[in-house]
């Protein structure tokens, strides 16, 4: 699930809301929105944003995901974007799309607190002596979360704005005319000298109306190192924005639309970078080919991270490392490559497909791997009929109850006169697994063939093949219930492929139970589409209720390895009996007759 600030989550829980989208282009002075945020440098010129989707269903078995481009259309307001083009190259620049709501901060902000002081004036910035007859605009976006009203002021008489306690963010703008003697300032004041100040603020501006140039230096726009007055003790806390990041990518190209009145920005995620050809050099330094193979002998997930590092792309190392060290602890693949592959093909086909994983790009533009194996059955979100736009269609996923894994490439009795084992395209080992309960019901169906150059029978290839088949059967082995393109309110915008959610809906038929209505049923998020016109979300959900059984009903969690001092089962505490793994007898019982717990 996409992480988001609490202010965003709170605002997103409301049924009635107006999502704001902010698109930032790295190095470009204009931030584009479809809503007037009031923030300096934000321009509400976005006309439309096309639906943005990531599709996993059907691609996961091939180790990857289909991800669409971010496409948005921007009005060339007063031809200003055109005017920017000679001085700024858009193509290749990083693009970030964030979303939030009115009343939440679209940029990082500062909490300004004061105690004590002998005056109502607590904190201010002084831009120097005003010029005679020159108009100045003094502004900030401020939220008063203190117990008493505060005043945002200049030091020109009458140019003040009172903000009551408990207000939301509001734009405060004051205009003054310089007199050639008074300093132009932006001030934070309390009503009484003994009051404390507690405000959230961003985007402070002191500028001549004529040129709009902010006289507050960039380094001071976070309110740091401003002036305190009359002994007030100030505390500043810098806080991140309240918006959630939905997309990070790069501009691929810009089209024109609306008879030249608009520009269409086409943005790609970083998967394009994986088109790079890797392992171009054999072990002996010559170009990789039949006579100059490139060998690899390492953990497949270490190979994966090494590729990411070599190419120089960002990836979510935490999740990959966790799987490397636990579920796939000690696994080793051994490749003898006689041709240089593209990174994408190699990663998806040779590293992730045999592990039951798929590659996709997350909201931060990082490569991420989801595995069929789930470390936890914990639901990240509870959805009900109130969150859906219509009754979801309960369909079925494609059935797979036969899995064949081929490995040991060129490792056997091929060309015995050869000095190498790599001069054959044959796979010398093959393991075919049937999901018998499914085969008994439906017959053999949907055979998946996975060919791995790196898996070796002498490196637990057979074990991995059987595990992989098991994971695929749990996912697709029994005509798994699939809810396709479930329309949901924007509340669901933070869900990602691989997330486990629980769904309650009285109108969805449950074919397993033979009844209508499901309650708290676990599903895995597969496909996701953001609709930026209606601000709704479409999800394809795959039944994952097997997880509830795999993890002891979804609340106990799998047993853990015990500390060395742990007592035998009958002497262990009730807590430890439920927490740790104990050995049981051949009847799956402990000595006191309690049922034995299975391994995770």
């Amino acid at each position: 699930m996409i992480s988001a600030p609490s202010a965003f989550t709170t605002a997103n829980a409301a049924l009635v809301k107006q999502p704001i989208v902010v698109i930032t282009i790295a190095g470009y002075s204009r931030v584009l929105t479809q809503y007037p945020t009031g923030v300096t440098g934000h321009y509400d010129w976005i006309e439309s944003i096309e639906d943005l989707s990531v599709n996993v269903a059907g691609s996961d078995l091939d180790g990857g995901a289909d991800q669409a481009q971010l496409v948005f259309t921007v009005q060339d307001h007063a031809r200003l974007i055109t005017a920017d083009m000679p001085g700024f190259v858009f193509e290749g620049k990083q693009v970030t799309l964030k979303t939030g709501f009115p009343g939440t901060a679209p940029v990082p902000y500062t909490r300004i607190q004061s105690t004590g002081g002998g005056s109502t004036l607590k904190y201010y910035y002084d831009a120097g002596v005003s010029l005679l007859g020159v108009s100045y605009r003094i502004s900030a976006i401020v939220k008063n979360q203190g117990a008493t009203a505060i005043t945002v002021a200049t030091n020109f008489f009458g140019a003040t704005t009172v903000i009551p306690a408990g207000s939301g963010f509001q734009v405060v703008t004051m205009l003054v005319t310089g007199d050639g003697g008074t300093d132009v300032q932006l001030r934070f004041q309390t009503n009484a000298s003994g009051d404390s100040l507690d405000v959230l603020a961003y985007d402070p501006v002191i500028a001549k109306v004529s040129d709009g140039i902010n006289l507050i230096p960039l380094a001071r726009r976070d309110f740091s190192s401003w002036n305190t007055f009359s002994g007030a003790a100030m505390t500043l806390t810098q806080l991140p924005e309240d918006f959630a990041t939905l997309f990070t990518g790069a501009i691929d190209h810009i089209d024109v639309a609306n008879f030249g009145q608009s520009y269409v920005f086409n943005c790609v995620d970083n998967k394009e970078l994986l088109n790079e050809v890797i392992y171009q050099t054999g072990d002996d330094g010559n170009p990789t080919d039949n006579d100059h193979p490139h060998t690899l002998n390492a953990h497949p997930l270490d190979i994966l991270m090494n590729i990411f590092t070599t190419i120089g792309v960002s990836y979510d190392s935490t999740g990959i490392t966790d799987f490397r060290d636990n579920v796939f602890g000690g696994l080793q693949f051994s490749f003898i490559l006689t041709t240089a592959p593209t990174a994408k093909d190699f990663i998806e086909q040779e590293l992730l497909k045999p592990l039951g994983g798929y590659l996709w790009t997350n909201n931060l533009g990082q490569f991420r791997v989801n595995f069929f194996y789930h470390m936890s059955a914990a639901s990240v979100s509870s959805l009900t009929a109130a969150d859906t736009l219509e009754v979801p269609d309960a369909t079925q996923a494609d059935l797979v109850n036969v899995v064949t894994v081929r490995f040991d490439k060129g490792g056997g009795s091929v060309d015995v006169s050869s000095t190498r084992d790599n001069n054959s395209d044959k796979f010398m080992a093959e393991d075919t697994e049937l999901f018998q309960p499914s085969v008994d019901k439906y017959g053999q169906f949907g055979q998946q063939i996975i060919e791995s150059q790196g898996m070796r029978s002498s490196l637990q290839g057979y074990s991995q093949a059987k595990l992989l088949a098991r994971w695929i059967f749990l996912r697709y082995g029994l005509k798994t219930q699939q809810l396709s393109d479930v329309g949901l309110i924007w509340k669901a915008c933070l869900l990602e492929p691989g997330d486990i959610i629980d769904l309650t809906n009285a109108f969805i038929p449950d074919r397993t139970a033979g009844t209508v209505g499901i309650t708290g049923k676990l599903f895995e998020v597969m496909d996701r589409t953001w609709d930026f016109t209606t601000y709704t979300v479409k999800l394809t959900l795959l039944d994952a209720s097997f997880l509830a059984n795999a993890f002891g009903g979804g609340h106990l969690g799998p047993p853990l390895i015990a500390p060395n001092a742990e007592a035998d089962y009958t002497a262990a505490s009730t807590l430890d009996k439920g927490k740790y793994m104990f050995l049981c007898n051949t009847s799956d019982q402990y000595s006191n007759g309690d049922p034995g717990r299975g391994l995770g």
Partner: protein
Amino acid sequence: MPTFTLSSIPGFADQPDTTLAHDKTALGIKLGRINANASFGMARLEVFGAGIYHDGDTVPLPVSTIDGYVYSRAELYYLWAPQNTGNPASNWVSAGAPWTLWYLAYKVDQVTGLVSCAGGYRGNQDHKDRQMQTQDGVLQVWIIAQRQRSSLVVAGGPAFTYHADSAFATDKPLTEALAQAMNQSAKVGVINSEVIYMGEFAHGATVPQPVSPADGHTYSYAECLFATCLRWTMDSDGGARPTPRSRTSRRAN
């Protein structure tokens, strides 16, 4: 013949102990890896033989009778001994009187499995100018097969710990110490016995201490047994193969 068979080919995984620390999830996958390592340790090193081969033969890839695993060429070493120094077709010398056996040269290429045999003859005292090269020789070849012979990686130098069966009785907790000891002991079973090809040596040379390709362990001589094969009849103390010379070349010398 092995006294056991395995229904599935086991393999090795260098599962780190940290995976088995307390409060880590007790996954069946983790114990499965230990089990597979233990099985792999029983099957990793196999000796096949002895086959009879002569010059030009290639020793075929063996198939494990334990689990049907087909070995790759890179997993094999060969030991040999002469079964017969004669012509493979006749089992007698290719050259009759007045020839006498001069030298032998045998080899099974450790990389390709190609068998090479050579036998040289020369005349007796009364026919000193006669020399004859042949491919005489029949070898008995033993195959030393080690799965993942040089690509196995074991980190950290695992140690064996004895556990009585009572440690695995009903109600016993699966503790970190127990799980890690099983993990390490299974790995020890994999690399406890290794066969390492050391090369060709002549009189006076010292075979260096072998180093395990799996974990870098340098074996002491006390931990080693050396097996030798007849390579060739030496021409001199330098270990060079004897070279039949023509009369011209002999004069030139």
